[in-house]
């Protein structure tokens, strides 16, 4: 059995979906009752070029390290030389993305106008991943959108307000299979598939070598008898041609990617599978979640992208960063619920377990929500708050003085730069940066931590969290 598991490769993708933003959970419930607000919402949607040039997106896609981002504001600026295709993946435009959703739609849920279907099929035929996409299915999605709408389907638009298609519900009596739930799941499947295909192609991964695929997406696939039953992991594995893979889903609100990585590494070290993929698609309900704050401050609707991630965990290759399974932090039931106690469990405890100090960690990746998105709606700068708390813990441990909090944060933290796609913002978006820093860069240890809000589901008053320590191979 291998001595250690490593993270060999990571891909990140974004899909610019301003037309789907009006179907996000918050806008879908707010806009229909307010025509003026709807007009303002549509007038504040970003163009594709603006989304590509947005500095935070370019940091997400690897054009620069988050610490190299220019000072805010980022809105209204464009990163020089920004491209759709970037080191970690790509940002896909909306018309192609509707085509991608059609390409992975195995139940004819999505019908597109003939013009949109033709345009999407044509553009996707020129995409670097075209050989892996079922383009015939995109063309076959062309149909009578008006007829679908008349029978109760959900209208789907290209931004700002161009009817492009409709998404059908699958069962009249099953609330788990209504159109907007299926849209969430299909958007998740499409972004997860895009991330996985990029992982395979960009890193030369043999799809037949993957034994298991774990999804840590936030969406809930199922029917009325098992809402959220799953299984997005195997669903996406099948689309991407992982012929030898089975799969399952790991759920833990925003924290899910970290336990998924721990489980994947454990499966590898135990010798169950040689290679495991951890992946996640995007969260469509979170599009436009804080749009009221953005409009109030004269900003565009900034939550207009879906994210996706795919990670390859394998047996030790002697090169890639090792996952320290002897330093997994977890927020225990017996721990309190205060922010400080949670971060103590996720940072101090695992480091103490291997005799390391907080200053032995070069980079801490925490909840990296872009503050330009969260502050206008009153949520503050989540990343900065976490970093100051981590630094304060280092003060308590007498590793630094109180005067050094600022430099600790500047050196080992970073500005939040991720879209508010909770599970991706919660540390896993930093993985490809971590791989660079721990292989060709100067870092020796990177700690990723994530927290999940269990109380949102009204079954527990608790929260949860988990952390994982990555270490330079041979370090």
């Amino acid at each position, binding site marked *: 059995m291998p001595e250690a598991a490593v993270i060999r490769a990571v891909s990140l993708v974004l899909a610019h979906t301003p037309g789907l933003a009006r179907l996000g959970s918050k806008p879908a419930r707010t806009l229909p009752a307010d025509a003026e607000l709807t007009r303002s919402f549509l007038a504040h949607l970003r163009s594709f070029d603006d989304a590509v040039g947005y500095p935070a997106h370019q940091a997400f896609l690897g054009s620069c390290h988050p610490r190299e981002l220019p000072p805010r504001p980022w809105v209204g600026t464009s990163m020089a030389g920004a491209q759709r295709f970037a080191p970690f993946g790509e940002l896909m435009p909306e018309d192609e993305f509707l085509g991608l959703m059609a390409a992975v739609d195995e139940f004819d849920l999505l019908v597109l106008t003939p013009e949109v279907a033709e345009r999407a099929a044509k553009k996707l035929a020129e995409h670097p991943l075209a050989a892996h996409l079922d383009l015939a299915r995109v063309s076959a999605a062309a149909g009578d959108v008006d007829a679908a709408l008349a029978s109760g389907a959900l209208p789907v638009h290209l931004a700002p307000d161009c009817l492009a298609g409709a998404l059908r519900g699958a069962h009249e009596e099953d609330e788990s299979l209504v159109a907007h739930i299926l849209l969430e799941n299909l958007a998740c499947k499409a972004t997860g598939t895009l991330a996985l295909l990029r992982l395979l192609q960009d890193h030369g991964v043999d799809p037949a070598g993957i034994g298991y695929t774990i999804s840590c997406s936030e969406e809930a696939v199922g029917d009325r008898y098992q809402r959220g039953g799953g299984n997005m992991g195997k669903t996406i594995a099948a689309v991407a041609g992982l012929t030898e893979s089975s799969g399952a889903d790991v759920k833990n609100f925003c924290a899910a990617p970290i336990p998924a990585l721990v489980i994947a590494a454990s499966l590898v070290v135990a010798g169950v599978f040689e290679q495991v993929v951890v992946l996640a698609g995007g969260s469509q309900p979170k599009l436009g979640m804080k749009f009221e704050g953005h409009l109030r401050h004269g900003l565009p609707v900034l939550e207009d992208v879906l994210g996706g991630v795919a990670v390859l965990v394998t047996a030790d290759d002697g090169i890639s960063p090792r996952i320290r399974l002897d330093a997994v932090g977890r927020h225990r039931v017996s721990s309190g619920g205060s922010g*400080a106690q949670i971060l103590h469990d996720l940072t101090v405890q695992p480091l103490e377990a291997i005799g390391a100090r907080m200053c032995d960690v070069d980079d801490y990746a925490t909840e990296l929500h872009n503050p330009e998105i969260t502050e206008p709606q009153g949520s503050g700068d989540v990343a900065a708050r976490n970093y100051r708390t981590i630094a304060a813990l280092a003060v*308590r441990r007498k590793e630094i003085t*109180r005067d050094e909090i600022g430099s600790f944060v500047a050196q080992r933290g970073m500005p939040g730069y991720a879209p508010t796609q909770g599970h991706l913002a919660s540390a896993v978006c930093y993985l490809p940066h971590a791989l660079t820093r721990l292989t060709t860069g100067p870092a020796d240890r990177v700690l990723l931590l994530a927290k999940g809000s269990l109380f949102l589901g009204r079954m527990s008053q608790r929260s949860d969290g988990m952390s994982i320590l990555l270490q330079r191979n041979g370090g």
Partner: protein
Amino acid sequence: MDLSTQETIKRLVDQHGAESLLVVLGAPDAESAGIAAETVVLGDPSWAGPLAGVQLGLPVYHVLEDELRAAVPAEVWEEQVGLMLDVLEVDDIADAVREFREQAST
């Protein structure tokens, strides 16, 4: 302050009376602490929630203010929130909350 929290506060006032209640905030910055304090003293400034136009005049403190610290056993305060003194801008938060607390008591 979100609508369900406003609803809960309104229900507690109806049940127990404003004179029996004190609000303790945990907001992480002066702006959100000020808005929350304003909501429970003068009413919801966004006019969107159940406390819009409802002047409850409740006494309100932030958990990091000295008055609260003095009312909590030292070891409990230290274990639960003490670390936040190094994290948050406590003076700014306290100023924002005090501004509305004083309006409640006049």
